[in-house]
């Protein structure tokens, strides 16, 4: 099967720091991949390269058959790839409803009624249908992150990228976000998740990847990676987060 994300020999430098070092990764349609690793390991950078929020210096990334090279292609890829950020990045000057409507209207050119129906359906799905008219800063962190997920889903993406979606949340709010993500995974969404939530990885991920120093150290089904890692680096990392 043709991979929906094909990452080939990607290098990235931040000044003199070699942030990504010859990363190769293929992700299949419908697959859920959890990427772990210490901070500075390049996991977020890799994720951000997939929709070109970060430019890479060498190598090739093909998303859903589209090579990331021209500006036109980048925008094409971005409409197919939803992204959820650690700090939510909701638009604070727009209501929850307008946060979800805006891109549908200006990018997808959908009408008001169609967009609104979609938004209501998605708010229902992430469990906060009653918050449509609130402003983001009136919501809890967990609710904001669920709005952010709904906002990304409104574009009907084929792939969802999650960049540490629960790291900025209070412990009791993490689960509500993970539940939404787990549902999404079970519906067959292709997901790449940078997160240390092992519970989520076990429950929803097909593959877990450990990155360190800009390289993929080890990849395996989560159960295997967590219980029986082969690499010393993986063992020492897991011993620290467990």
């Amino acid at each position, binding site marked *: 099967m043709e991979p929906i994300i094909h990452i080939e020999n990607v290098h990235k430098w931040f000044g003199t720091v070699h942030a990504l070092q010859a990363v190769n990764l293929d992700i299949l349609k419908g697959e859920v991949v959890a990427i772990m690793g210490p901070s500075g390991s390049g996991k977020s950078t890799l994720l951000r390269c997939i929709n070109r929020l970060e430019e890479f210096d060498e190598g090739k990334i093909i998303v859903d058959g589209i090579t990331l090279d021209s500006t036109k292609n980048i925008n094409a890829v971005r409409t197919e790839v939803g992204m959820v950020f650690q700090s939510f990045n909701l638009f604070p*000057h727009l209501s929850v409803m307008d946060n979800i409507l805006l891109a549908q209207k200006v990018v997808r050119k959908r009408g008001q009624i169609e967009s609104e129906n979609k938004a209501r359906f998605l708010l229902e799905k992430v469990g906060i249908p009653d918050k449509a008219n*609130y402003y983001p800063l*009136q919501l809890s962190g967990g609710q904001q992150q669920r709005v952010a997920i709904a906002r990304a889903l409104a574009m009907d993406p084929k792939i969802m990228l999650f960049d540490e979606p629960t790291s900025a949340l209070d412990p009791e709010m993490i689960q509500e976000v993970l539940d939404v993500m787990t549902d999404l995974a079970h519906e067959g969404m292709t997901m790449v998740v940078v997160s240390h939530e092992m519970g989520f990885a076990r429950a929803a991920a097909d593959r877990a990847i450990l990155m360190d120093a800009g390289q993929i150290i080890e990849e395996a089904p989560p159960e295997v990676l967590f219980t029986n890692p082969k690499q010393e680096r993986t063992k020492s990392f897991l011993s620290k987060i467990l």
Partner: protein
Amino acid sequence: MSSSSYPAPTPKPLVGSGKTEKTSRIDPWWGLVAVVVALILILNFASPDPYNRILVFLQEGIWVTVKITLISFLLVLVLGLAVGLARLSKNTILRGIATVYVEVIRGIPMMVQIIFWYFASPAIVQEIGTSLNNASLANFRPDGTTMAIFGLTFGYAAYMSEVYRAGIQSISRGQMEAARSLGMTYFQAMRYIILPQAVRVILPPVGNEFITLLKDTALVSAVAVPDMTRRGREFQASTFIIIETWVMVALVYLVMTLLATRLVSWVEKRSKFER
């Protein structure tokens, strides 16, 4: 921060939220405006000669000052945004041009700029016209008010571009990333996401620029534009009434700037974020 601490079933609308609680009281600074207006009226009625004569003579100048201020300011808002965006552009040439423009303009006194646009720039056009045998260029005689507006716009846009730039840069990078990750173009993200938020941040400095511009329009009196200051000088020259003339000119400027200050803080209050 749980939602249960917000008992209101529907949030207050973003615009118009300034009408709640303590802000519904009349701003005490309106008192100062009232005092100055009262002072002008008292002078006008208690001592019509010379104060009423001065006011009548200034009247046209007041409109010229208001007109130049408003037109220039609107143009400054547009040109300043264009230059501010150019300063933030990834395009080196565009950014270079904008940076040189800002640095050069900020290094030259406003007075000199206005004189340059009125006296020197037509002379340059005329010389070019003469050498090209182009009669319409050779006889180029711009209208004073037009050149004054041009000079003020060109000068103030440089300062305004820096205000815009600071405002845009104050919005977290994540906002642009979120907008772009939804497939918006750079300009869509600017228009719908970044600028609406930046505008709230820059309102106080923009208001400042407006008031400074209002006062700096007095400089155009140097290039034969019949603004309020010019009218004041003309009145003084023909009547030798010195103290009363400039007291009245100062008071009228003061009313205008105080009103502008009130207007700015009113707009600011109305555009606060809902939290």
